[in-house]
């Protein structure tokens, strides 16, 4: 019987910066879910009444939760960058005026739309909603 050498796969993604970036972008997913759950808890407390909702709102105003959300903002921004950096690889070629858009142009367009929609969201929150 031969005993062959098997390199362990443990921590394989730490061996190469490309794998590391791949794992970093995949690792944004639990944080996206965490925000959805925080929001869902707020919606459920809204149904349970004013006292339950105010408890949730008060918790969200605590320094710990504000710091957690500030960290989440950075993670979401990283998700935005990586999402549009990958987009050229996941979509069919786009031809504008007879020329194929370059990956960099597609990434730029995606981020530009994200910035515009984010600005619109802020305007709605600041001036339209209350």
């Amino acid at each position: 019987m031969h005993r062959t050498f098997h390199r362990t796969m443990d921590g394989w993604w730490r061996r190469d910066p490309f794998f590391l970036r791949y794992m970093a972008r995949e690792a944004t997913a639990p944080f996206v879910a965490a925000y959805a759950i925080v929001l869902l808890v707020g919606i459920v407390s809204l149904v349970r009444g004013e006292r339950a909702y105010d408890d949730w709102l008060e918790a969200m105003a605590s320094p710990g939760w504000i710091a957690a959300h500030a960290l989440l903002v950075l993670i979401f921004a990283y998700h935005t960058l990586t999402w549009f950096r990958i987009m050229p690889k996941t979509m069919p070629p786009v031809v504008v005026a007879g020329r194929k858009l370059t990956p960099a142009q597609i990434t730029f367009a995606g981020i530009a739309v994200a910035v515009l929609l984010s600005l619109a969201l802020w305007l709605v929150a600041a001036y339209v909603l209350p």
Partner: protein
Amino acid sequence: MKRSSQPFFWLLFGAGGMLSALIGAMLVFVTGVAAPLGLGVPADLLSYPNALALARGIPGKLFLFVVVTLFLWHAAHRIYHSLHDLGIPPGALAQAACYGVALAGTLAAAVALLAVGF
């Protein structure tokens, strides 16, 4: 041939990934940082009457439902496919755990947003 459910999950993954990439960072900033601190938005933006009005109106109700559910399905699909990279074999149990959370969240959001009234 057995049809795969993966294209359906991939569609939800893509939609949630796109929505969170487009407005996620700003949404988290508004609800989690700006509103509690009254930074650039009215300090009562998320007060009980304002939040209730948002959740009772059709546009706000749809927005909240779409954000919560698509974010959850996006994350569930991504986490499920990352398990393999961490040495956890994909299978029925992992699938049930990942997509189960997203499904439970979807049902909870639907029930809550209907129960909150119109």
